[in-house]
């Protein structure tokens, strides 16, 4: 498959005219998606998809075109469209296709052969087993809205006129379930999941107990009292915040004057024990990859080093425009031109597990879920306000559940106010890993 895609990409790049820079990304994906409901298959999707994205830079102008088909007629049309689109761009001296930078990529094993050989019947069984396990776990569980098994194998190739030619293959799978719990008067929802590179790595027990616990422990939740409190963010919530912090550390945000951390390089923006890394070369990360979206080797980038802002993430364009070098942080899909941002973010974990953190905090609130984070966080100003639900912490123990509360602060303040980082690093099906963190002095409003 890799060779086929490389060949298709090269055949387009070969058509580049004198002085024209062309970058071609060709992707192929195979996906199985199984949803079960009440012990039966609700839907079974067997899908195969393909796509091509062509970027042309000519006279310092850029154009882009894509298609979800590799038919010869479509390929020709797509190249012509990309060329035509380039003629309307504003000339920008920094526009160019990435050049090979001599950094060797680290070879990662991202496609487990077991994923290919695992039988469909066994995939179905995994989902049915998970649903059954949740249903039987607690009498208050009244249903499982959906239980999904999903796997995909993605192959992609990138070829450029500048001499980049690279193909890679990645595979992953996950189990996920949404549970419903009721105590007769109140209904709550929860979710649980498990991710892996092969179905054999998926943990039904983990996904099941999370789905059950998340839903049942919120039953009877009331609004919290308002005030400034110490909060513990659950790993999943931390991961969502990291994603937003990561986006403010993108070279694009910096270049366009939209980063609240502009001019702060070298400043202490968090406590000594806070280290934030973007490391797509860590094969354990769900979004690990050998190359970035421009075909440069992906690499480990230190964003916050012991509390000090170490730098920003660049693709080749933001690097050229700002006099830096690419950090191998081009993010894209085949139908978009490369952006710049984190590929696999993670905090360096601390010493205490969540139970110990709860004891240390004494009084506060454990935030199990947040809603409206994207509408509620202003990456430009750093203000945020998000809806939250969770459990009060009283005398070092989890106490009554709360809902419909908001937590508000600024991202800058929140980083400085981190008191402790947990040891419970968790891999999630997103670009950030999660870990529990303790943040003091967060405005919580309830009733």
């Amino acid at each position, binding site marked *: 498959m890799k060779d086929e895609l490389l060949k298709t990409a090269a055949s387009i790049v070969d058509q580049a005219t004198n002085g024209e820079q062309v970058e071609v990304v060709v992707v192929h994906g195979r996906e199985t998606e199984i949803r079960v*409901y009440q012990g*039966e*298959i*609700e*839907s*079974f*999707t*067997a*899908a*195969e*998809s*393909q796509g091509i994205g062509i970027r042309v830079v000519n006279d310092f102008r*850029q*154009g*882009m075109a*894509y*298609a*979800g*088909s590799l038919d010869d007629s*479509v390929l020709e049309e*797509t190249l012509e*469209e990309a060329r035509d*689109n*380039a003629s*309307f*761009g504003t000339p*920008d001296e920094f526009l160019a296709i990435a050049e090979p930078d001599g950094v060797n990529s680290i070879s990662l094993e991202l496609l487990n052969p077991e994923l290919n050989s695992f039988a469909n019947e066994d995939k179905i069984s995994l989902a049915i087993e998970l649903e059954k396990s949740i249903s039987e776990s607690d009498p208050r569980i009244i*249903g499982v*809205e*959906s239980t999904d098994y999903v796997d995909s194998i993605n192959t992609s190739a990138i070829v450029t006129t500048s001499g980049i030619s690279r193909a890679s293959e990645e595979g992953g799978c996950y189990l996920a379930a949404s549970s*419903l719990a009721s105590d007769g008067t109140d*209904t*709550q*929802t929860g979710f649980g999941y498990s991710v892996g590179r092969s179905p054999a790595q998926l943990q039904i027990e983990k996904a099941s107990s999370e789905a059950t616990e998340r839903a049942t422990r919120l039953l009877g939740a009331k*609004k919290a009292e*308002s005030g*400034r409190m110490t909060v513990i963010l659950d790993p999943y919530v931390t991961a969502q915040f990291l994603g937003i912090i990561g986006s403010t550390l993108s070279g694009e945000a910096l270049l*366009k*004057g*939209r980063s*609240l951390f502009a001019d702060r390089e070298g400043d202490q923006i968090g406590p000594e024990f806070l280290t934030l890394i973007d490391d797509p070369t860590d094969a354990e990360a769900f979004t690990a990859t050998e190359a970035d979206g421009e075909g440069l080797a992906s690499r480990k980038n230190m964003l916050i080093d012991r509390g000090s802002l170490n730098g920003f993430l660049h693709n080749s364009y933001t690097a050229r425009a700002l006099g830096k070098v690419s950090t191998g942080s081009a993010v894209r899909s085949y139908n978009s*031109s490369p952006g710049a941002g984190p590929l696999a973010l993670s905090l360096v974990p601390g010493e205490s597990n969540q139970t110990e953190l709860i004891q240390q905090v004494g009084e506060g609130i454990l935030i199990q879920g947040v*809603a*409206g984070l994207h*509408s*509620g966080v*202003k990456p*430009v*100003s750093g*203000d945020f*306000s*998000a*809806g939250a639900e969770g459990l009060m912490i009283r005398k070092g123990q989890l106490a009554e559940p709360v809902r*419909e509360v*908001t*937590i*508000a602060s600024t991202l800058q303040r929140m980083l400085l106010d981190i008191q402790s980082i947990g040891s419970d690093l968790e891999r999630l099906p997103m670009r950030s890993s999660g870990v529990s963190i303790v943040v003091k002095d967060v*405005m919580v*409003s*309830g009733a």
Partner: protein
Amino acid sequence: MIEQNLIEKVLNEALKSGGEFAEVFVEDKRSSSALFDDGKVEELTSGRDRGAGIRVVIGETTGFAHTADLSERGLLTAARAAASATRASGSSSSARDLETVVAPSPNTVVTLPESVEKERKVSLLIQADEIARSQGSAITQVSARYGDSRRKILVANSDGVFASDDQVRSLFSVSCVATGDTGMQTGRESIGRPIGFELFDQVDVEELAQRAAQRALTKLNARPAPSGTMPVVIGSGGGGVLFHEACGHGLEADLVNKQASVFAGKVGETVASELVTLIDDGTMSHEWGAFAIDDEGRPAQRNVLIENGVLVDYMWDGLRSRSEGRMSSGNGRRQSYHVLPMVRMTNTYIANGETDPKDIIEDTPEGVYVAHLGGGQVNTATGDFVFGMTEAYLIENGKITEPIREGNLIGNGPDVLNNIDALGNDFDMGSPGTCGKDGQGVPVGDGTPTLRVTSLTVGGTAG
């Protein structure tokens, strides 16, 4: 797009192993967009997506496969894959004779976007940038986006449905950043209609740019939003998204069937203040969520969901309506041929009331006036929701006073419906939206008159 006899062949192939229902959905979508940012035409992008999704239903199980290969061989392979995905092995049945569904489109397209020079599209962006920047030196960044798409669909199924639609959309948005002593603030405005380039004869992009810039500038002088529970007045057109999220989703039959909705089992019951009539209407001419047929070949419909506070009906797609022995309400939609259809909203709105909006404000001693809500999220099982306020003001002594900075509105859908105690006579539709459900996005519209909710939680940063 594809000959009728080939479609029949594909449907029969899909039914070979005992399928009760089979459907072919063919899509050919072209889209183009242009982005202006940071003083530059950054990029024009063109896209083409073409393929077919085939599903086979047996009992409660759906098998689904899709392909970008629209040849006879490609379609038959996908039909077999969908059939085998149901895991069934039964005797073959055959599809009913296809009959063309005639459905008038609520949208008339005058100028196909593809017939318009790219130059003209780009000049709109430059115009918007100039006007936005001229609103004040505090405007430090402007980005504007133009987008259009043309989506031709063909749906045929074993019940004899054969339907097609040609859906054109045009969209324009402007975002501004204003910088002042209090830091940076943003303002955004967008307009979109299911029509062609004539949109720009109807809408002035300069005015749109001006509003976006003013929104950002206003917030520079805004004070932090208060926190706590208080009366909230939602401005006409600016808050329909709240009812889409907090009430509409709970009225989707797929969620209701799984008891994942607070509205399950409540048809005929009073679920809202008697002021409230909630309607979902796919036939609203030139509104963002309007179309001739849904993605299952059903003509669009106007569906009254809540009438004078009483729950009348849910929204239905083909799968859920079949199992209930009723008709679909024209709400079966899908993002693309890559995915299965689901119950989705179209244009969802609270119908007009009778009160003068001025009287509603004057009658509110203290509270918050929300001129514009941003994105939000809802838990349909509990009805709990969160929305960002993108333009809001304090109400003091019955008057709209100072602007407040962004914060969230938090509440519960059913509670809000019951706590609406005033409804204005100034109905308007809001900005074009993209509704996300299960990872799929579809274009939707929303609307409201000015209305007051007696108590909502405002989550701001002021102590």
